[in-house]
């Protein structure tokens, strides 16, 4: 029977500050950009270029806590900093992978906290409330989806089975956090998400938008901020497609709702 399977959501994660540590949820509210608060904030350098773990792997060590009206940043050996949301402030024009974005500078105290932590000038911006970033035209549906500061799409989904297959090829097993997914699915077969087209989780219908091509951030140990060489080397031997080394599926959704750990995944 179509749709009958043993697939369930096993993790829901958000990454409120792009490239900092994530937050595991039991249930995530889905808004127009994806999970609420996912990649709502981002770090930029003095010229407004975004900075990620690719340039600065130690960002993995910055933990993030949401509180009503703001975000708290913390890292070992430093006093945590509460950053209340600034709705108005300096508007910063930036880009995420050639897609223009406008952020609001979140102030000097977080600028000095980040600059001190990173050893280079860095500011925290939050997506401007009056700005909507469209998914790249080529990958949009007629729904004209929008996204936060994520690389390109509202969600990244990966099956546990895909990671198990990868781990069977690695000398040292890696945890799922290397891949920074929003939704992890238990059950089924390795790389099943490659072939998915439309799925339903909870009350949310999602469409596969583009397989996820992986970068150096997957080589950063999220617990230590150290950069290694795996899993890219091993993935490169068997997961290479014309557009890169693929692991996971990017999704866009049809409307708001809720996705929770334990929810069945229905293939439409």
């Amino acid at each position: 029977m179509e749709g009958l399977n043993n697939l369930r959501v096993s993790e829901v994660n958000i990454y409120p500050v792009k490239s900092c540590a994530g937050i595991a949820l039991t249930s995530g509210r889905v808004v127009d950009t994806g999970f609420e608060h996912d990649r709502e904030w981002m770090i930029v350098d003095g010229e407004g270029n975004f900075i990620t773990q690719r340039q600065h792997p130690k960002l993995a060590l910055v933990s993030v806590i949401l509180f009503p009206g703001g975000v708290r940043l913390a890292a070992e050996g430093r006093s945590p900093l509460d950053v209340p949301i600034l709705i108005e402030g300096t508007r910063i024009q930036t880009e995420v992978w050639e897609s223009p974005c406008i952020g609001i500078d979140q102030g000097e105290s977080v600028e000095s906290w980040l600059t001190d932590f990173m050893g280079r000038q860095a500011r925290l911006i939050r997506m401007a409330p009056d700005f909507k970033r469209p998914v790249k035209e080529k990958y949009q549906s007629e729904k004209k989806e929008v996204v936060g500061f994520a690389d390109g799409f509202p969600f990244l989904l990966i099956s546990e089975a895909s990671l198990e297959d990868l781990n069977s090829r690695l000398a040292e097993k890696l945890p799922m956090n290397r891949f920074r997914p929003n939704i992890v699915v238990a059950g089924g077969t390795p790389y099943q998400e490659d072939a998915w087209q439309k799925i339903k989780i909870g009350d949310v219908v999602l469409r596969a938008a583009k397989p996820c091509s992986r970068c150096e951030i997957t080589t950063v140990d999220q617990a230590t901020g150290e950069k290694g060489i795996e899993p890219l080397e091993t993935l490169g031997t068997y997961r290479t497609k014309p557009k890169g080394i693929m692991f996971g599926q990017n999704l866009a959704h049809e409307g708001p709702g809720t996705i929770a750990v334990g929810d069945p995944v229905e293939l439409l």
Partner: protein
Amino acid sequence: MNPSWQKAKIVKSAPASFDIRSLVLKPESYIPYRAGQHYELRMPGSDISRKYSIASSPYEPGDSLEFGVQLIRNGVLSPQLWGLAEGSEIEIRGPLGESFVWDADASGPLVLLGAGSGITPLLSIYRAYRFKYPHGTCAFVMSAKDASRIMHYDALKDILITRFTATEERIDLGFLKDPVGALAKNPQALFYICGPDGFIDEMVDNVLELGALEANVKSEKFT
């Protein structure tokens, strides 16, 4: 596998274009590599590393490696690499990269499509291919702002097919039909594409549209 960090000496540092510097390194221990691979580079004692594609050919005599480093204003490592004097030492780890290698048995036609600093691994592949197959068919297509932005332009200008975006249209499907269209229908032809994300996204679609087989198309992004 799992190469570790080692020391390397800068034996030559010279401008290779307006914004690319050619660095020739002699590693303490030379490890054979395949065209298309890269190394990680870092300043001695630093934990900030960046990847750079090897531009030299694995068949060149000697035990040195050439890299082409584009200067990124405001960047962390590239300005430091530009500032290194000949004779100084850095640390390198490699060779790395399994997804963009050219296999020396591949005697069929070759299509190289690059933009900007994305020329580096293509240069290695081009040099290796010419060494192995001096009469093989190769289309080497480059997009750049102008000729001054192409690494080793003087040495390459007779063989490159170029589009200079300062004065010409960007490379698109129509432009590719002539140099690449016929090759794309050859199931032996291999395609290597390197440049910014958007360039890769478009060029992969273009060559597939022209008939290239998915299994024969590879890309490398610097991001």
